[in-house]
Each structure stands twice: as structure tokens, then as C-alpha cells.
């Protein structure tokens, strides 16, 4: 299934009614919300987090938060937009907690340069995986999920220029790793 197909499936035709019932604690409505959004939430979490286990935890924490807070959802945006922001925030929190590899951005660069000598090209999935956690999160949130640099900066507790420079550096790396320089 492609990303575009998934976007179509995010639409919940009877969203108002499902949310109203979920607010009242109706387990069937909560389950419906889970079933409609479990895949996009997992996909977002998995694209940001390094491991399947972390993505599963983020998915679980996201829906727990949704179930806890559904009464606070004001309905001034889409339910998916609200759930997605919770998921993104939980995934970024997970990255901060794990402190995966951002401290070793330098290490990341060195390793990448070394491996570039042996790998002329790699596919987009592999290149995305190879980015530092922060860079990958910024790329995914900006280019795929459509968040602005302002929104990403707020979620990450960083500046807008940090988000912009992370995105630019990430694209420069992707371009190199995907062998697009040779085409230039």
C-alpha cells in the first residue's frame, strides 16, 4: 500500500458520531478509532523511531492518550490531525528518552562517509533509515506529514532554523546516498 492510499483511508466518514460516542466512553467507538487510525499511527511512529518495539510502544501510548483525552478534543480540527500530533509528540519523546544517536551525529557522518565508499547507491528506505533520528523525524514530519517548520520546532523544543537546517542537511545526504549527485 502506498502513502497516498493510506491518506484516503484516514477519512472517517462518521467522525462526529464516533467521537461523540467515544467521549461518552463507548468501547465500540474507542475500538473504531483504534482500528481506523492504528496503521497511520504505527507508520508515523515506525518512520520516526528506530525499532519496531519502540514504534509499537508509541502506538500504544498514543491510543492510551487518545482514550484518556478524547473528552478534551474540541473538534476544531480533524480527529486524525489531533491523533497524529499526539503520535508525533510521543515518537519524539521516545527519541529524546532513548537518546539514540543524535549525540553522535559526527559518528553518523563518519560511518556514512565510510560506507558510501563501498555502496554507490542505496534505496530510499535504506537512506532514510541511515539518517540521524532527528534528521529522519524532521524529514518525515515536514515532507510527508506536512508539518511546518514552526510546528516541528515547537514539538521538538528547538528553533525554526534548527528544523530548517536539519531538513537541508538531511536532503543533501539523501541526494548523495541515492546517487543523485552523479545525475547532476
Amino acid at each position, binding site marked *: 500500500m502506498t502513502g497516498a492510499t493510506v491518506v484516503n483511508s484516514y477519512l472517517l466518514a462518521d467522525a462526529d458520531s464516533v467521537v461523540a460516542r467515544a467521549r461518552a466512553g463507548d468501547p465500540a467507538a474507542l475500538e473504531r478509532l483504534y482500528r481506523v487510525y492504528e*496503521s497511520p499511527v504505527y507508520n508515523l511512529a515506525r518512520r520516526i523511531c528506530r525499532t519496531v518495539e519502540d514504534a509499537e510502544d508509541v502506538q*500504544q501510548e498514543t491510543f492510551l492518550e487518545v482514550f*484518556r483525552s478524547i473528552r478534551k478534543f474540541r473538534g476544531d480540527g480533524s480527529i486524525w490531525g489531533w491523533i497524529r500530533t499526539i503520535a508525533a509528540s510521543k515518537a519524539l519523546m521516545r527519541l529524546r528518552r532513548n537518546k539514540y544517536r543524535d549525540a553522535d551525529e559526527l559518528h553518523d557522518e563518519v560511518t556514512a562517509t565510510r560506507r558510501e565508499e563501498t555502496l554507490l547507491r542505496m534505496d530510499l528506505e535504506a537512506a532514510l533509515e541511515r539518517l540521524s533520528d532527528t534528521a529522519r523525524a524532521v524529514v518525515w514530519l515536514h515532507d510527508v506529514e506536512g508539518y511546518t517548520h514552526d510546528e516541528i520546532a515547537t514539538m521538538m523544543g528547538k528553533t525554526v532554523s534548527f528544523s530548517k537546517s536539519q531538513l537541508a542537511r538531511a536532503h543533501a545526504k539523501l*541526494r548523495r546516498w541515492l546517487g543523485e549527485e552523479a545525475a547532476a
Partner: protein
Amino acid sequence: MTHLTMEQLLALRGPGAEPGSAAAAAHLDSCADCRAELDRLHQRVARLKALPALRSPRDRLPQVMARARQERRGRQIRWGGLAGLALAASLALAVGLTGGSTAQPADSGELVAAMAESRLLEQALRELDPSARVTDGHTERMAAALSDRIALVDRQLEAVQLSEVARREQALLRLWQERVGLMDALVNVHLTRASRVGL
């Protein structure tokens, strides 16, 4: 000729004009290399959007539902427990006032005031409903640390009910005042975060 940087190319993709974007756009009109680079950037983003959706290997709904139920029960127990503590403290205070203890009793007015203030802060926290908010890592860590300390004070309050009357009153006053301080800090943590994100 100096070509556009990746940051300039990305700015050209975004909505609205940024400083220098007019000059960058003018350069783009006259530079085939940069137009090709921008095209590659567009293609790369399109390919990112078209990556296959990844699916969770397991169904987590049963765990999520079970934990949600467990949390609801936990919250009920916590609020019930707090009411019990306040009642126990009030009883201890009443016994202390009529018990004719020879030790120096704590100021009962201060104790009542601390208990009342703690109740008000609990109420403020319930109204803030921090569980309904998305918080950053720093706020979450601070809130978790304060909640842990409040839970510790609550356990000490339970234990102190068993001690000798005058000492009990002094300990109760000290612990309720400590609880007020911690609750106040916790409410402030959530208030500060809420005002920062405009909630």
C-alpha cells in the same frame, strides 16, 4: 556561477516568500542546473510520500483497552485515597485537640489551612487535566518527579497516623505543608507549559 544551496531550494518549495527568495527565484530562472536540482528535490519528496505504509506486526488493542481500564481504576483509587488521608488527618487533629497531650502540639489552624490549600491545588490540577495534554520531555520528567514525591509524602502521611498524638500533629503539619509545596510546584509546571503552548 554560485548555485542555490539545499536550504534555498527547500525554501522555494515552501509556501510564502522568505527573505532572499526573490533572488533565489530569479537565479532559478536563469540556471538549468538549479532547476534540475529543484526537480530532483520534488521527485525525492514524492518518492518519500509514496513509500509503502508500514504495519504493526501485532494487534495492541487488547493491551490498550486493558491499560485504559487499569488507569481509570487507579485514578478512582487515588482520589479516594486522598480523601481518606484528609479524613484521617482531621480525625487525628480532633483527637489531638481533645487528648490532653503534654508534648507541644502543632498549630491546628496551620494544619487545617495546609489541608485546605492542598485540596484547592488538587482541584486546580484536576481542572488543568494534564493527562489530556501533550507535553514535552522536560515537563513530563519534572511532573513525574513531583508526582513521585507527592506519592511519597502520601505514604508518610498514612504511616504517621500510627504515631503518638503530639508528634503526629507536628508530623502531619510538616507533611501537609510539604505536600502543598509540591502540589504548588506541579500545578505551576503544567500552567507554565499550558501558557507556553497557548492552551
